[in-house]
């Protein structure tokens, strides 16, 4: 029960940080799940995050994986509900108020101001993730290749990400990867 309570508290807290996307919460996600509670190792967190990018639906369904690692199916359910309920209620309430806010003088300021801060948080998340994931030249090259491909084409991101995985397997077969 204690574990379910911890899961609920952690993911409800993380939920409120997802401004601009799930990546904005990544630095705190790493600190809490890896360093504070030791639920998963940092590589495992990166693996779940990446698998979550390949799974359909919202891109942070990987919170279910962490919940499941900690406390099985109930853990997955608690993590999911905790992660979506607080922001869900907020969105529901603001969604109904929004029409009244359309003439509010501060609305453009809030949208623009929070916009730049959320890009900053996503950047911080990307740096934290990059430090863990880009552990050799090969991986840095893969990340840059995927970045350029997605920037210039409209290809479904799942394909280049799966291709990166296969290149990782190939490199392992050829014995040219670190670890």
């Amino acid at each position: 029960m204690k574990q379910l309570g911890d899961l609920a508290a952690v993911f409800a807290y993380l939920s409120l940080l997802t401004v601009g996307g799930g990546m904005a919460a990544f630095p705190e996600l790493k600190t809490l799940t890896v360093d504070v509670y030791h639920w998963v190792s940092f590589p495992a967190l990166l693996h779940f995050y990446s698998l979550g990018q390949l799974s359909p639906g919202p891109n942070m369904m990987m919170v279910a994986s962490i919940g499941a690692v900690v406390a099985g199916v109930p853990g997955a359910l608690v993590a999911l509900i905790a992660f979506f309920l607080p922001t869900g209620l907020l969105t529901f309430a603001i969604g109904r108020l929004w029409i009244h806010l359309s003439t509010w003088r501060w609305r453009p300021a809030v949208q623009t101001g929070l916009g730049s801060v959320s890009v900053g948080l996503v950047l911080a998340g990307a740096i934290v993730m990059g430090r863990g994931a880009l552990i050799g030249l090969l991986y840095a090259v893969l990340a840059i290749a995927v970045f350029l491909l997605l920037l210039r084409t409209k290809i479904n991101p799942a394909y280049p990400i799966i291709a990166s995985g296969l290149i990782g397997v190939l490199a392992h077969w050829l014995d040219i990867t670190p670890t």
Partner: protein
Amino acid sequence: MSDPVSAPAPPSLGRIFWVFLVMGATSLGGGVVGYLRTGLVVRQRWLDDVTFVELLSISQTLPGLNATNMSILVGDRLRGWRGAVLATLGMCLPGGTIMTIAAFAYSIGGDDPWSKAFLHGIAAGAVGLIVVVMVQLGAKVLKTFADYIFVLATAAAVVIFHVQVPYALVAAGAVAIWWHRPRRKQDGSDPK
């Protein structure tokens, strides 16, 4: 609801659940917003493009993921709170099930060197994806030189000075909102 959508009759709750379930199961590879637009605006015609963009801008401003925030807002517009709950459930059910199964599979085969090689590879690819998403988000919201300073200051606070994300969010957010505060232009050309 005091604000009905222009569509003639709102769809049934079961229909809402089903349509969101299908989108939740087929929106592979991120970019769920594109799938939402195709599903809601083009196929079902539950929303027009103007409303879609309006709801999307709410979703992006508030905390929470775009996909679930959109499910809540669209579900509420169509059928009140029950619609919001069923739309969100449908959106999350397939991915949540898959990622729960993935956790069990990982505990069995995650330590195998071959799966590790694959997982390290996709993690590197995912970094590339995140940077693209960030660049696209930035292209939309960063307009002045000061905005780029806010981006760098926020990221530096978190990564270099280890400021906890909520403090960075509140502090940088307050400064950035104040910077963009509403004021009358001196030259009299008040935008909007």
